[in-house]
């Protein structure tokens, strides 16, 4: 156990906060892209994941990801560190609160609390990412249940397999017999994982009413770009924080993250300009995210020049993949597949070429490439199968899809009882009447039940 290194620990605390901010950022990236009538629902899917996963991670998520190894390396033991038990050993000791949480992780002098904090934020955003696929039509209660079940069944095991010493780690079969698959910050665990889950759920949910008929254009492009800006910012925590310390490796990951993102934005805009005649704001935001996704697995393994190549390839490929989706007729509404699955896959595989230590372009043989493809395929398979099971089970138990009327009216009013904006001049803005103040209701009188009352003529 290394002594506390305050510099490394400070960086991990900062990184954890940065990654936490990514989820509100994502909420706006997504929220701006849906129609006005569904923006609150879109935001709520991300925010509620911050609620549910935030609690679940502390209860059994950390333990399932990092404590022990059960089912042959598939997952950790949920009970070993339930409620983070044992992660702050001195906590109850004579030193009292002052030394609380001073137990260290790895050799970098980072406290386990900082490590847990960092990991917690990854679980949250992975779940939130999925919400883009199910936009505009999912039952909110089913989303809440899904967030808890999916993170438990799909995410925690995959995190364990890759980062917790499980099947896809250096200690797993691929690592032992071929070469350790490389995933710097979560190309498989986060992006391929969420991308596949999004595609599967979009398939289970079916298309939005009016798909390909009604225009479903972004209701607030500045919000999309605000979200992208916050994501870019937070992603420095995600990737450079994945170095686990504040070393030169973190700096390299920082640079590569930024550079790949810049290149991907340019790549995406170039495809748009050529194919669609216009370089759009949504495209700039999307291209940036595609680059961030693709560099995630590679950030600490490639050179800055390599990161430019990875970014440009990913930006162009994802822009192209989104067109492909249109051809398939799958209503992956906000392109979680096209950006996170494709981007995550591209980044994971390109490590086989660009890794400065083991890549084909640096004179190594193809073992790394093979290992990357295997790891990506395994993540796709695991996420695909488990998401299908979870999705079908919830569909059977409580349904996945909002009532058609609610979908047509808009989920904001129908489910959340709110409209996003009230921007009218002085006129109709506040129109309506205060019909009830709940706190002032005489006890016993119950609230009216139905939201959509129609009286007969």
């Amino acid at each position, binding site marked *: 156990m290394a002594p506390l290194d305050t510099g490394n620990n400070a960086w991990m605390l900062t990184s954890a906060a940065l990654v936490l901010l990514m989820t509100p950022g994502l909420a706006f990236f997504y929220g701006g892209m849906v129609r006005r009538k569904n923006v609150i629902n879109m935001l709520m899917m991300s925010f509620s994941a911050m609620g549910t996963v935030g609690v679940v991670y502390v209860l059994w998520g950390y333990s399932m990801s990092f404590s022990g190894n059960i089912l042959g390396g598939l997952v950790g033991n949920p009970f070993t560190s339930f409620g983070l038990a044992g992660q702050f050993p001195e906590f109850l000791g004579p030193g009292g609160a002052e030394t609380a949480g001073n137990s260290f992780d790895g050799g970098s002098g980072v406290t386990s609390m900082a490590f847990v904090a960092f990991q917690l934020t990854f679980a949250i955003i992975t779940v939130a990412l999925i919400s883009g696929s199910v936009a505009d039509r999912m039952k909110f209660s089913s989303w809440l249940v899904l967030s808890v079940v999916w993170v438990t069944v799909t995410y925690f095991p995959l995190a364990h397999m890759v980062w917790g010493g499980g099947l896809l780690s250096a200690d797993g079969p691929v690592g032992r017999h071929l070469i350790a698959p490389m995933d710097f910050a979560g190309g498989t665990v986060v992006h391929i994982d969420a991308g596949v889950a999004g595609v599967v759920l979009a398939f289970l949910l079916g298309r939005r009413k009016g798909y390909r008929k009604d225009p479903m254009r972004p209701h607030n492009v500045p919000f999309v770009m605000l979200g992208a800006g916050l994501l870019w910012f937070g992603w420095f925590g995600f990737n450079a924080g994945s170095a686990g310390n504040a070393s030169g490796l973190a700096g390299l990951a920082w640079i590569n993250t930024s550079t790949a993102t810049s290149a991907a934005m340019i790549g995406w805009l170039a495809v748009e300009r050529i194919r669609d005649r216009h370089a759009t704001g949504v495209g700039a935001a999307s291209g940036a995210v595609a680059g961030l996704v693709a560099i995630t697995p590679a950030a600490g393994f490639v050179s800055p020049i390599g990161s430019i190549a990875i970014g440009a390839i990913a930006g162009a490929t994802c822009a192209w993949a989104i067109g492909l989706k249109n051809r398939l007729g799958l209503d992956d509404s906000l392109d979680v597949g096209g950006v996170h699955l494709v981007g995550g896959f591209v980044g994971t595989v390109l490590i086989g070429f660009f890794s400065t230590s083991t890549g084909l372009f640096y004179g190594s043989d193809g073992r790394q490439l093979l290992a990357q493809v295997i790891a990506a395929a395994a993540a796709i398979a695991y996420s695909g199968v488990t998401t299908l099971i979870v999705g079908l089970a919830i569909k059977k138990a409580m349904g996945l899809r909002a009532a058609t009327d609610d979908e047509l*009216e808009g989920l904001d009013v129908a489910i959340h*009882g709110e*409209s996003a904006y009230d921007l009218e001049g002085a006129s109709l803005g506040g*129109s*309506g009447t205060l019909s*009830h103040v*709940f706190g002032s209701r005489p006890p016993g009188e119950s609230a009216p039940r139905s*939201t959509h009352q*129609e009286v007969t003529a």
Partner: protein
Amino acid sequence: MNLITAVIKPFKLDEVRAALLAFGVTGMTVTEASGYGRQRGHTEVYRGAEYTVELLPKVRLEVLVDDDDTDDVMEAIVRAARTGKIGDGKVWAVAVSSVVRVRTGERDAAAV
């Protein structure tokens, strides 16, 4: 000439427009509106206070048509806009004394 005004449910706009086009009417002017009537609004709740939003979103169309077409066009709009549920709206006609096309100065029938 007559001016037909229709207040309809917003999501019916496309169907009405198609019906008008089928009839040969290619132009119209559209405004966002809100309607009070028999149809009830929805409620919204903020921090324990519940608001009933009673003004419902409607779309208001204006179409200038020849006297002879008036009844048929009204009929066409009514058919296309009908859902059969409360709140489908109203269509009415008013006589217009003269119409000018701004671009050319053409008047009346030639103006639309």
